[in-house]
């Protein structure tokens, strides 16, 4: 019960953090204009 609560809470927060990081361009470059393109995406996309 306690184990499940702690795991659910921390994993929920980790997922939320990962999602918020995913949506931020400054994760990959402090200057978002220079952010690299994603795999498989055309440079102009």
């Amino acid at each position: 019960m306690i184990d499940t609560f702690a795991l659910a809470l921390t994993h929920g927060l980790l997922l939320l953090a990962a999602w918020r990081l995913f949506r931020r361009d400054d994760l990959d470059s402090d200057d978002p204009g220079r952010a690299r393109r994603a795999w498989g995406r055309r440079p102009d996309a």
Partner: protein
Amino acid sequence: MHDLGLIGFLLILIGLGFKRPFVFVLGYVYVDIVSPQRLSYYLLNSVPVSLIFFVLAVIGYAAMDDKSGARLSGRQAVMLLLLAWCGYTTLTADFPAAALTKWDWVWKALTFAIFLPFTLRTKLRIEALLLFMVLSAASLIIVGGIKTLLSGGGYGALDLGISDNSGLYEGSTISTVAIAIIPTILYLAKYGTVFPPDWRVKLFAWALVFACLLIPIGTQTRTGLICIGLVAVMMLRETNRRFLYIAGVGIAVAAAVPFLPASYTQRMQTIEGYKGDASATTRIAVWRWTWKYVQDHPGGGGFDAYLQNHLVIHLSDTDKALGGSETVNSVEYDKARAYHSAYFEMLGEQGFFGFALWAMLHLAGLFRMELLRRRFRKSTDPGEGWISPLATALQHGHIIYLVGSLFIAIAFQPFVYMLVAAEIGLDGYIRRTRPRRAKRPMGRPLPTPPPATAATA
């Protein structure tokens, strides 16, 4: 259900990583700390999760990341040397089979720590790494904290979710690490941008700090108590209202003592009466043995060289039944006792050279953080307000580790190497984004000063 949840979690991380490969790095950090494959009953425990994330992280970095300005720092070079040296001592180890088992995880910890700083290219990545380290450790700490509140715990008895007593799940290790991350938790609660500070973040952070403080009580480790004392003293250095802080700590301690379990207070009292305590006296005997051993084997005996020790332990205790005046001496014999200290672990296993590399790595980290802390302490640039507090938090965590590891053999604890990597990453980030103006070489004349605008004579 439990297993499916963990698998779903890992799959989401992998999915996000294909657009933002740094998520793979974060995934590896999570897997290394939490070991979800050990929490799992059937599906995950046969999959090399850690290897998968490591390979993805390296490929992601190699294929997609910006590498301009990246260079091997001095501390990464030291870790590379240490890795090579450990490889050599493993080949020539006194106990080749045992040494190989430890080498199996040590090389991974060192390799990842050498790789990690290259990926820490932005401020947000450094924050993300620390956030993942804290939240991953929190999954053990929250379990431990709640169980301590409910049951009081016990030495070697606090169940953190799995019965395995290795990695961070070991009592002394988690109690040192839990205290060492307190400064980082407080930093994230104040300067975090992924979870910007609001009342929920503050509430969670303070509840987590409370859980961290409960871990040494739950695991009843004396090292943890020493670390708590240390963190209280170091935070004094950073507080503006010192008297208020001291009064607050005093009231908190006075309020907490009546609630401590009796078994805990009894065990803590043995810190002063260590001569009658077999565990503490054995440590000193092992340390003596190690010091003698390394004189004969300056290159160290390879991992787990302690297996060959034979100890004679002299115990002396004051007999309470005789009015406390008679001292009772006894002798115990022991063998193959572990080092119980990272410093002696390094000396015995890696010899003087390995110890010197290890000490250099950690002292250089403390020194570099002190330089950053001072350089940016008075910065008025709003974009630089986070640098000095982060350097301070990392340095404080590092000091707590170095003190805690006086009594625990955690010289290669992967969590700590991630902390070291975060320090190197911060250092490299500052070097790239805020280079110091070049100093004038000796002997070269000063640049011509601008003409004076007004005579002051």
